[in-house]
């Protein structure tokens, strides 16, 4: 290795540099640097990896891989289920890609990081306003871990080790919840939904709350059937038995609907992806958590706050670190260290770019387009909405035919027609979950309806009454 020029994709040293630096250290070869590593565990062969590639070859390879994926750009997509195709203004990636933001570490040195701290602080403020609760952290990994972390928070706050959860969580969310709760030794009980309305069965909830004192009820709105939950009501039921109301919501709806925090929820979490993040094949996204000021000491993750500097002027810094793993270690509220800060910045830029007015309009467009196509589809023979409860932009349909072949037919016409509901929940034959966002034009929605009509006719589904 020492004899030839060092080989590295991002070379910084000449052979001469390396020799002179070894001299300064007092060593005679690069190998000497590693002499403390016993020979028996040294790797005496090169790693078995593909040969190094010039940038243009790498570029070809990645383009070829990318071309193997269909996307929401190559197809008209009605996919949702917790990840949504919303419009991302070009200002969002442009501004957050600035090197100063992109390549900085966690702002441990606040004096040289006021720009990042300011963005994160404003992110906390803006999400506090969105979710209706003032204390917000700078993100956790995703919506599912936010829900799970919030469940544990409720346990810590209430000192209870039992949580109650709707059956209509995204399945990944309930799996993550179970994983997290198992480690913490928290029991989980599940509340079914009402078959007609599609929202939580409140009698069953009341029963459950009576049975075992729960740290929290975990609600998702819209739930996994797209149905909006009665947060105010659920929260009241919770509060009457010392239980917290935890709500996981889809923030895009908040341009039309009240913030859960304003409807009595104690901890509101959300998947932030819809607010300016690309779908990215499933990640990275980010989880946001908001709660009352009183609960801050139980929050996981970074929090930016105001401090004084030496001149007694206001400055920003990471605060309340005593909750965090680098201080509290095994007593920390969470293990989270690296988080999703850059994506939190994206959210702030997104919300600033569309603004109050724009956001409300986008939110309304989602609802109106979804209601429009829902009506159109329900005019097709044998198609009807499964539930009567209100929805925002996602809804479940009963079909007159099998779901899988319908989706295949649609896909051949360049349409991702929604999610085969049996892939989310067992025993859900002939059911399709569709989400519609502002990105679909009327022409496209009409075309989709048309293709549905023909596909259903072709598949000759049994017409239900």
């Amino acid at each position, binding site marked *: 290795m020492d004899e030839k020029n060092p080989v*590295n994709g*991002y070379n*910084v*040293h000449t052979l001469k*540099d390396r020799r002179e*630096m070894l001299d300064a250290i*007092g060593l005679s070869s*690069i190998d000497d640097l*590693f002499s*403390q*590593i*016993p020979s*028996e565990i040294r790797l005496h062969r090169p*790693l078995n*990896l593909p040969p*190094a590639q010039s*940038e243009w070859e790498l570029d070809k390879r990645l383009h070829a*891989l990318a*071309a*193997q*994926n269909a*996307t929401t750009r190559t197809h008209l997509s009605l*996919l949702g*289920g917790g990840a949504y195709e919303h419009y991302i203004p070009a200002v969002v990636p442009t*501004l957050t890609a600035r090197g100063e*933001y992109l*390549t*900085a*570490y966690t702002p441990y040195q*606040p*004096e*040289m990081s006021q*720009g990042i701290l300011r963005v994160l*602080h404003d992110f906390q403020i803006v999400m506090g306003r969105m979710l209706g609760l003032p204390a917000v952290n700078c993100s956790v*990994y995703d919506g*599912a871990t936010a829900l799970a972390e919030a469940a544990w928070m409720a346990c810590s706050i209430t000192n209870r080790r039992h949580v109650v959860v709707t059956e209509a969580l995204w399945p*990944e969310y309930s799996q*993550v919840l179970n994983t997290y709760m198992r*480690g913490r030794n928290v029991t989980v009980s599940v509340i079914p939904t009402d078959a007609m309305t599609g929202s939580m069965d409140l009698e069953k909830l009341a029963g459950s709350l009576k049975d075992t004192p729960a740290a929290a009820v975990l609600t998702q709105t819209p739930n996994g059937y797209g149905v909006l939950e009665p947060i105010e009501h659920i929260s009241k039921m919770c509060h009457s038995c010392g239980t917290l109301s935890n709500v996981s919501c889809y923030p895009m709806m908040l341009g*039309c609907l009240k913030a859960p925090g304003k409807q009595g929820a104690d901890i509101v979490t959300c998947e932030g992806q819809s607010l300016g993040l690309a779908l990215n094949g499933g*990640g*990275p996204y980010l989880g946001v958590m908001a709660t009352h000021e009183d609960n801050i000491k139980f929050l996981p993750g970074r929090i930016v706050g105001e401090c004084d500097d030496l001149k007694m002027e206001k400055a920003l810094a990471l605060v309340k670190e005593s909750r965090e*793993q680098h201080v509290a270690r095994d007593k*920390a509220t*969470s293990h*989270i*260290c690296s988080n999703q*800060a*850059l994506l939190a910045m994206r959210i702030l*830029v997104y*919300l*600033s*770019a569309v*603004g*109050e007015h724009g*956001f409300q309009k986008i939110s*309304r*467009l989602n609802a*109106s387009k979804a209601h429009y196509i829902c009506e159109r589809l329900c005019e097709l023979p044998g198609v009807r909405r499964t539930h009567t409860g209100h929805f925002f932009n996602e809804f479940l349909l009963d079909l007159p035919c099998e779901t899988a072949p319908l989706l295949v037919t649609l896909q051949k016409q360049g349409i*991702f027609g929604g999610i085969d509901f049996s892939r989310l929940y067992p025993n859900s034959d002939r059911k399709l979950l569709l989400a519609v966002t502002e990105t679909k034009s009327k022409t496209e929605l009409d075309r989709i309806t048309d293709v549905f009509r023909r596909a259903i006719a072709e598949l000759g589904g049994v017409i239900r009454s």
Partner: protein
Amino acid sequence: MKTQSIFPKSRPGVSGASIIDADFDTGPTDASWFDPADVREDSIGLPEMSEVDVVRHFTNLSRAAHGVDNGPYPLGSCTMKYNPKRNDVLSTLDGFAHAHPRQPEPTLQGLWDMMLELQEFIAEITGMDFVSLQPAAGAHGEFAGLLAIRRHFEQLHHDRNIILIPDSAHGTNPASAAMVGYQCKIIPTTSDGMMDLDAMEHHLDQRVAGLMLTNPSTLGLFDENIQKIAEKIHANGSLLYYDGANLNAIMGITRPGDMGFDVVHINTHKTLSTPHGGGGPGAGPVGVKAFLEKYLPAPVIRRIHGRAAPDDNRPMSAGRVKSFFGHVEVLLRAYCYILTNGADGLRTASENAVLNANYMRARLADLLPPVFAQRCMHECLLSGGSLKVNAFDFVKRLIDFGVHPPTLVGAGCVHFAKEYDAAMLIEPTESESRISLDFIIEQFRRVAREAAVAPYMIETAPHTTDVAKIIKDQNAWIQLLEATKY
């Protein structure tokens, strides 16, 4: 100039992005859509400004920040190496950026192929048999790895609920262990910087599920006893967990799998060049030896009928740790980084990382004597004890000269024992050139010279930033540190 919040710049009624859809611009919310009690009546409180004002706000704020793109960032334990620009471009190609995770599997073949290959690359680099890319960060990888260990012993009906952790471990180690339901036992460090073997043996009994170790450690040292440790741990029926956050020191030189580790996580945002983004996102792939494979979280990517595809059917799995498949955009960067470097390149990166740290250590030894006699790996721990000013003040002055401070207690996420509280952990990384290293060294020396003649300048530093030194609750912090001490 002080940074300003965006909210006072808002001017209600102005909207930067014009949102237009003549077919659906119906004005207020349709009454039939929602329960009237749920309908928003007030405004949310989002800022409203023109697009150019948004651009100026965030452009100018960025100028009050410092990244690797601006200058040296020798923040120990954080591996602030160069984040290649090609990866920014190639990780955001439409074919990945706009792919929906719930698309039919066959429509995401490029994603599965990439992930499967990357799993294999990381397995090769770490010497493990199988890798899952799902965890979101290092701590999350620890969580997934520890879950696998826990599930392993559950299957064996072994009641082991203790994890051993050296006192120099990163805070996420005990925190993750706690989340998995383990009790932590802390092993002290000997004066030569190695984990205290005797103390470990003292704790080693049938309740011990495993030992979490970083090697090289966060003190910058390679634990030479690693083979002995592995032997003892395994002899006890326990497992060995490798915190791979420091893998940058050893790529192609030695592998945790070959050292005897059973589980490994790595931090792609350290070793494989993901930009840190002011705090994240990163990714924390977790690798295991074959006997633990079945416990990894679902889904993993496997070759199924000759094609890469996600495998969700994992009845023995310790459970899911997040939605979907992992941080795809981040993983693509790791993939690009490995392909750009190849085997020689990765090895050279580690060689240079270690060379650079030792060079800094040698060139600063007169001023800041190394805490440990042993040669360092990718980072060096230097003592600020003989400085004329305290280390906290000292490093703040570096900011004025364009160098990001190294890691100190209270100014980074590293945990030092009390004896090292004037120590600085310096990690130049392999991407600093000789010129840059000499520049960093010169700034350290300059501040040291200044400390002798004008300590006041240092105590009140930094002087060139938008705000003056921020005190936070440093004392409160140290008290807390005491309070949570083991």
